[in-house]
Each structure stands twice: as C-alpha cells, then as structure tokens.
C-alpha cells in the first residue's frame, strides 16, 4: 500500500446517498467487461444535484463531459456519506473514476464495509468539518502512517481518525486478500 495519497479535492455536503453516487439506471452495466466498466467512471456522482456538486461554489461536474475519469481523486464530505442502497457499484464507480480516498465526517455502514472489504477506496473519518474549509480543486496530501491530511493550497494540516480494526483489511487490499493472509478461507 502506498504511504502518501496526493490529489485534488472534490467537496460535497452531507447525506450523499448511493443513488447520487451512481444513479440506479446505470446499475445494469457489467462490472467486469472493461468497456462497460468505464461507464461507471463516466457516471460517478452524476446523481448529485449540480448546485451541490463541487462545493463551496457548486455547479462543478465531477467528471467532464465526454470523459470517463475525474480530475479529482480525494472526496471531502460531511456526515453519513454513502447512505441508502447497498450497491457496491457506488465505491466501485468512484474507484473507476480515479478516486483514491474519501474523507467524511461519518459513513453509512454498508458503504463503509464495501469500501474496505472490496478494497476500492480508503474511507477516512475525521471529526473536523473539512467540507467547510476545503474548497473543490485544493491540492491535498494524505499521510497514511501519520493519519493526517495536508491542504497544500491553504497550508493547513488536519488530523484524521485512525482506521482502527479495519486497517489490516485496507492494507491487504480487501477481505479476500486479508482472509488469504490470515488463512481464513482455508476453513471452507
């Protein structure tokens, strides 16, 4: 696992549900066919009402028209990110669009599990309301060992909550990699 994640921030509000992350009409594409998989990148976060997309200014599409990936690789959000349906297509779509990490005040349980167990993106939590201070487009640098995020644009550094119990699964790259390492799949 890399020890530094650096990229541009995309800022969202609270209660971003999985229908906004990937609207239900797009759930029909294959998750293994490389051509169809690209569509998940194209439509990632396409359900967010435009006024709330890319805060504080808003009206910033996450993925440019005609593109299959985003310029933004770190998502900043408020409370309860990923609420709603259990679709694993949601963290998958973010990964396909190029997202490496999310920093939110809190997550819905299923989305959080999916991020970790599927090894798609790293879901960091922080007690700080970063969505109020970070602006879409700011350059961020996450230090995975130190559990900090530095805003290179503003010069400020913030503490992230430690990943705790799930760090080992995140580090292994998902539940299967972890279970192999720990010999948990041998029982079956």
């Amino acid at each position: 696992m890399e020890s530094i994640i650096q990229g541009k921030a995309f800022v969202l509000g609270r209660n971003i549900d999985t229908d906004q992350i990937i609207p239900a009409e797009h759930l029909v594409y294959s998750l293994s066919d490389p051509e169809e998989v690209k569509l998940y990148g194209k439509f990632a976060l396409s359900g967010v009402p435009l006024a709330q997309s890319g805060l504080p200014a808003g009206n910033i599409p996450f993925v440019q028209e005609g593109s299959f990936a985003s310029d933004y690789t770190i998502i900043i959000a408020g409370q309860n990110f990923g609420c709603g349906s259990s679709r694993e297509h949601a963290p998958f779509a973010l990964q396909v669009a190029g997202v490496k990490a999310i920093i939110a005040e809190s997550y819905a349980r299923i989305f959080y599990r999916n991020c970790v167990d599927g090894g798609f993106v790293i879901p960091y939590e922080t007690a700080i309301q970063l969505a109020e201070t970070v602006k879409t487009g700011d350059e961020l640098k996450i230090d995975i060992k130190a559990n900090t995020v530095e805003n290179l644009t503003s010069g400020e550094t913030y503490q992230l909550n430690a990943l705790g119990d799930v760090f080992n699964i995140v580090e292994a790259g998902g539940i299967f990699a972890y279970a192999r390492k720990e010999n948990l799949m041998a029982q079956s």
Partner: protein
Amino acid sequence: MEQTITQKILARAANRKFVNTGENVWLNVDVLLTHDVCGPPTFDIFNQEFGEGARVWDPEKVVVLPDHYIFTANEHAHRNIDLLRKFAKEQNLPNYYDVGTDRYRGVCHVALAEEGFNLPGTVLFGTDSHTCTSGAFGMFGSGIGNTDAAFILGTGKLWEKVPESMLFTFDGEMPEYLSAKDLILQILGDIGTDGATYRAMEFNGEAIHSLPMEERMTLTNMAIEGGGMNGIIAVDEITEAFVKSKTSKPYEIFTSDPGAAYFSKTRYNASEMEPVVAKPHSPDNRATVQSMKGTKITKSYIGSCTGGKLADFKLAAKILSGQRVSVPTNIVPATVKVARDLETELYNGKSLKSIFEDAGCSIALPSCAACLGGPTDTVGRSVDRDVVVSTTNRNFPGRMGSKQAEVYLASPLTAAASAITGKLTDPRNYL
C-alpha cells in the same frame, strides 16, 4: 452478562455464549439473499476469488430472488437475469425463483417471508440494504455489498461488528388512521438518517405487538433509513403462527435480558400520534400530514417492499372503496402472492382488486418497479417535475426516476386519501 436480542443471535452465530458490543466477530451465516442487480457481480467475484468450478458453501442456504428490473425491454437487465439463471444452474441452487416461470415471486424481502426463509434466531445477510426487513421475525437481517456476499458464498462466514441497540417502545393502542409507516417516519424524523448508524433498532411495546407481521416488516424495513445495521422485534404468538404456516423448520427464540444495556431508550404513545409524511428529499424530513395538507401532487404510488404488501392494500382499500382517484395512481403488489390475494381478499363484499380498478387506479405486475426509478420504461417512474406521494421507503433526489421530481413518503392510508383529492390529505377525512 445481560444481552440484547441482537447480541444473543450474533453470539449464537459466532458459537459463543456472549458477545460484547463493538467487538468484531466472525459469524456463521444461515441464509444469503441476492437479486438481479447485485447477484451477477457477486457471482463474478465468487468465480474470480474461489476459482472457476468452485462450489457455493451450501446451495440450500442461497436464495436468489430476481425482482428489481423485471418488466422492461432493457437488454442489460435481461442479461442480468440470464447470468442469475446460469449460475443457479451451474451451482444447482434449489432456491432460485426464475422470472417468466411460475416460480417467479417478486420483491425479495416480502418473498423471503412468504417462502418461510425468515426463521427466528437466525442470521441472514443480503445484497440489498433492506435485508433488515426480516428482523421483524426475531432474527438478524442486514444488507451487505457484493464482495462480502461473494465471501459468504464461498465460506458461509462474514465478520460483523456487534452493534449497540436503540430501543423504541410504542405504548397504547394503534389508531385506525395510523400505519407502521407513520411510526417509523416519526422515529426517523427524531433521529435523522444517520441516527442509528452501526446500531440495532429494537422495537417493542403494546402497539407493536398488536401489528400483523407485514406491518412489523415496514418498521424493520426502514431501520436502514436511520442508518441501522438491523431492525428487530421479538417473537410473539403472531410471529410463531406466521412462521409455522410457512415452514416446519426448527428455530430458536431469543429475547433481550431485562438488564441489557442500550445506547438509548425512547417511548412513544401510539394512540397520541398523527399521520406524517417525509418531505423531499430525505426520509427524516418529517411533517404531519395536517401541516402539509393541500400540497398538490401529480401521482400516487402504492407499492414496494415497505408499502406493497397485502396489509398495505387492505389499508388503502378502506379509503378508496367507493371513491375515484383524481391523479394517476399506481398499485404495485410486491409479490405474485400479494397480486393474487388482491383478487380474493374482500372489503365490504368487494375484492380489493375491483375496489382499486373502480377507483381508477392502475394495477401493475409485481416487482420493485418505480421504487428505485429503474429503466425508462418502468411502470410509475417519475418524470420531469412530478410530485409523488409514495408508500416506498426512500425519497432521495432521483430515487423514483426524475432528479427534478419530489417524493413525499407516506402510509398507504395517506397515499390513498391524497390520490382522491390530488393533494396531500389526512386519511382521517375518509375514515
């Protein structure tokens, strides 16, 4: 140490006497549920991780109920069904309910109950966030993603963090103008959409235990709308009678110890409560129907796992009997069985089906339909600036189709009364 019902069920599944809240435990899974949207990617991951030719851990314990995108011309949706069919055949799954055959059932959470898969004391995981519905049967049910489901398919196991529990007690008698939907929307308005994140929501009290199983399922169904891991109601005679009418499989009954620790305890008096809606665009955006009365609607939708059961239609029929709707009104039975019951269940000597038809409603084929928007040819899908009163469970932007549409979540009584007037209407006006 005293434990909640949820702790006891998880302890049993972990082969332990006691589990602490907050600890991660590996559970033996009793049933894995999947459907047409999440089944194909789950099977893909299973094949990739366990290798082609790998066998599922226990074919009897895998239940595959296609229900989401059923009656559509969308070819991707058809391909998903083909993938389910192929996997079910390869793995010889006895509990696959194929579309287009007389095995087709409809919305998975309701079909699980009808087919006797809901057994007190057991652990069910499903690739659908409303898997918590089954908690109405004194069991643990929770939603997971495809990777976790694939892991269970191969191993029969999954890790879970033992949740703290929030207790919601409803005292008093349930008035005839309220349904379980009003109770859960009341709670959601109080705790918010993340008020129960990573926790169990346990329901008890006189009003809850007076409800039929289907109404209890509405409560546990929407535990996820508060972010809950599971919703749960202890077994009583009503539960046992229902379960025994569906299956002869053995089960174990657990109850919370009187001294068990809870994150919170909240009491309501059902007899003092009012009909409520959740305003756009969040299930916790509660308001009384009285305070919203007169809000113009363009559609009424009575369906889904939370609002398309026979009990829901019985309530709607009480209001719609002898009336005419003034806006397009979709009646979407959750399952084939519910659709059949509409023909045989009578109210004032008339079948529910003819009551709805005479009122001018359209009755759709059983599936999830527009509850989650779906392909553009889906029955009841919202378009443009539709304002929908709906018995479904989510009203996030775009959930029922159009991103510009507004959805008011309501009980079947309120949805039916509003269909008559074309405005949000308190059902007491028609009772």
